[in-house]
């Protein structure tokens, strides 16, 4: 058993070191060849080969045929961003508040806004540099409108390190939203259940 006293001895050089049993390095060509064979050819090799053969004959294969086939992704998985629309009316949810741009720790979000014809704030351009994005999910979490969310698309192959996606790429197609084909987003950044119980009510004069 180790005791505290041994830990208190900080002078580790006293009997604390011991030599590891390492054979000498091979020097001649013959010794080297001998070492290669003794390391490569072992009984376990054939155990492995046997298992592969056995499973092949059984035809019960679990391999996912990626990219033809993909595993389902959990709803709270954080992959490439999507921009939501309001259900039914199809209005863009993003109000251009810029919180995602501010909170982004890898500084990969940028947006341009202007005042539109109805005196509302309009997002004219919105980009995410996926080459820099670390998919931390802060943007989705901070979004007050549940506009930016993380989708399930996790493939980001690109010819360039700086790979941008724009607002249009991320936005839910208008017809899908209007047809009600988009379900209320349950994933990362959505309000947690039982939120109602935690909210304090405000008096109303109506």
């Amino acid at each position, binding site marked *: 058993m180790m005791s505290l006293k041994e830990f208190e001895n900080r002078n580790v050089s006293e009997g604390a070191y011991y030599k590891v049993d390492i054979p000498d390095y091979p020097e001649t060509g013959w010794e080297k060849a001998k070492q290669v064979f003794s390391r490569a050819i072992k009984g376990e090799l054939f155990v492995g080969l046997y298992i592969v053969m056995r499973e092949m004959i059984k035809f019960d294969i679990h391999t996912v045929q990626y990219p033809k086939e993909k595993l389902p992704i959990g709803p709270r998985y954080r992959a490439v961003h999507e921009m939501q629309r309001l259900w039914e009316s199809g209005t863009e949810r993003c109000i*251009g*508040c*810029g919180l995602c*741009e501010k909170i982004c720790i890898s500084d990969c979000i940028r947006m341009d*806004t202007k*005042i539109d014809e109805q005196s509302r*704030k309009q997002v004219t*351009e919105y980009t995410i540099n996926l080459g820099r994005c670390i998919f931390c999910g802060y943007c989705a979490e901070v979004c007050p409108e549940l506009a930016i969310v993380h989708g399930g698309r996790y493939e980001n192959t690109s010819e360039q390190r700086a790979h941008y996606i724009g607002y249009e790429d991320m936005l839910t197609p208008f017809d899908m939203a209007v047809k009600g084909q988009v379900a209320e987003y349950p994933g990362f950044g959505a309000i947690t259940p039982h939120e109602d119980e935690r909210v304090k009510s405000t*008096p109303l*004069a109506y």
Partner: protein
Amino acid sequence: MSEITITIDGREIKTEEGELILNAARANDIFIPAICYLTRCSPTLACRICLVEADGKQVYACNSKSKDGMQITTSTETIEAERRAIMEVYDVNHPLECGVCDQSGECELQNYTLEVGIDAQSYAIKDTFKPVQNWGLINYDPALCIMCERCTTVCKDMIGDGALSTKPRNGDTIDETFKESMPKDAYAMWNKLNKSLIQPNAGDTLDCTDCGECTAVCPVGALVSSDFQYTSNAWELSQVPATCSHCSAGCQIQYDVKHATIDNPEPKIYRVKNEWNYVSLCGAGRYGYDFENRVEAKDEAAFANAIEAFEKADTITFDSQITNEEALILQKLKESRGYRLINDEARKFAEFMKAYSAISGTATYKTPLKAVNGANFVISVGSSIKTDNPNARFAMNNAMIMNKGAALYFHPVADPVVDDMGKNILSVNHAPMQEEAVMYLILDLFSKKEALPADVAEYLTSFHSMKTITVTETIKEKVVEIVKEMKVNEETGEEEEVEVEKSKMVPKKVDKDVEVDENRLLEIVNAPKTFETAMEKMLAKKDRFALMVGPDFYSHPNAANLARLVALVEKYTDFSVTMIPEKGNTLGVAMICDLDTEAGSSTIGYNVKGDFTLSATGNGDLDMPAMNQQEGTLTSIQLRVNPTNAALGYKGYELNDIANALGLNAKLTVDYTVKLGEIDGFKSENFDDLPNHYTNKGEEMRGYELTVNEVVTSGDESVAPFDEAAAMDEAMVYRGNPTLQFNDFTNKSHQLNETAALYVSSDYAIANELSEGDTVLVETTKGSMEFNVKIDSKIGGDIPFVPSFDSNLNSEALFNDYRFSNATIKKV
């Protein structure tokens, strides 16, 4: 004022007797929340959040003066309860649109809501319908307004437009039960808030000089710049401290810069902000910021041509919109290569100051503009003050309101903006060329005659005469009337008519001859009949006098005599004298450059047309950086050398590159900042060591102050009499700009861009049957020019303004040096 000691939260601090508790606390970095208070304006008492306990009594820190030994606590349980209730009230019905609001991130409502820690709401009232209003450059969203009234306060107390006021809100009354349940001050504050809204006095839109200071002071997003609205969040912008170069006020500004768009990473200026507690901007400073000269690369061919032109030239003409460093480079080029430097406007100012110093004994004028803010009797002469230097107008207005002051405004052109500044300002519209008479009048009214040089005193006496005038006086007179009355005769017992004598006092008007002193100077300067009686009222309890003289004087044919008169006024009256330099850095150029009168045969023009033109507006032979792309210093009316930084990059050549090619040697233009020390009045300071901010105390930590050097005077104080016959009384024009315009740079800004026109008052337009857009031919002895007519509600009288802000027009060619010129104006 004496220094006293007060204790705030157990900390002993030194302050001055009578200083407001809030300001004393701020000066010592003690935080007292306050929303509606503006440092240089009168307390509004709208927010009531600055409650403190002074000597056991609850007072408002923004309107209570400190007394020696005062014990102040900034937070007690009741005060905290009040503050919480006040912030909850502010949050009642405040739209939850921080996400899109422009003020988000720098919003005082957001800050104080978080500071006080509001996490629940206890109050409620029905909201009213308040649609958004667009007032041109400004956008007002009444739904966001918290009725702190900072906009109306700054407009009245600082700017002098008084263009905003409160109107009834017409909402529900507050629920009775709240009166009992909520803290007292919070209820009172809510009551006030619930009664009113902000409205422009002119009706649906704003009729003012468009300074935009109301948007600067607005603590929430209710008043915002229309152009800036929804273009950027505050936290995305980076701040570049700078100095406004449009006029000589040299206001502290801050350029807010961000990339232009996602596709264009080039920096762009989104807006200009100012430290509004200590400096107020005019509209040109606030909206005229994007005048940069975008140059893609160094144009080597043009640069080679420039060097060639410089080798050949013998003259450099330039205007005063340059930094001190550039002026020093030009001066050094003159010294090393013998160029003549031509800048008539700065030369005339230098000559004026020289003539002034012959009597005053100082190289420049001695008093910065901030003395006007502290004065209680202000006179402005020789300047169309609202457009020559808006800050001088703000100072005059501020003095009138905050110091219970009065002011006299002498100028040939009637100015409705000045007249609207209150009943304590008296405008005198004298004839052009009678400025000397005005100066004599000031000497006559304010100097001690015994001290004046004998010949001046004698000359002044010659305008006085005793005159017998008939005064109508009302006296009470005893009138005896005989009235018939019915009386019972005691003997007969019958009623009979008796005559009774009755006397009563009846007021009666009598004409009376009185001997009075008549001052003919008043008639000469065209003073209103009520001048003397008005002055008597205006001068009551006045002890701090300030005089501002303006650019009309410097280009005046008798400028030297005027300068001597100005010096006499300063010497023999209680007035301090501030001179308003005409352009951005006229004072700096006048001090640094040794300017010549006659141009040579081949000229280089810098921002002025020459045989070879260097231009920061982009229409010359070689591009130069504009003021927002340059580092350097500017000399302001405050007798201060203020640093300005480059907000935007510049890829082309600058004056320093040319100077280096011509044999001078400096890596950067700002390497000349330290060399300014060679010039009398300037200091040897490195550019990078110059600060540019205000402290919590309100101290101006910007650059350094000029040293006003003494010069030897000859003791000759003679001044020439004025020529009454020289008064101009025919049709004439005035060289002056409309509000918001100063030069090509203000005009180049996208928010201020306008086509130069002949600006006339509506009275003039009616009298001459002109309407907006008519084309007229203006003819003077120097030439003629066509203009469109623009009716400007901000000018009065019958003298039209010929603008000089657009150098392409070269309207200055219409004038001799003097800013007034006889002219015939014909409709074409």
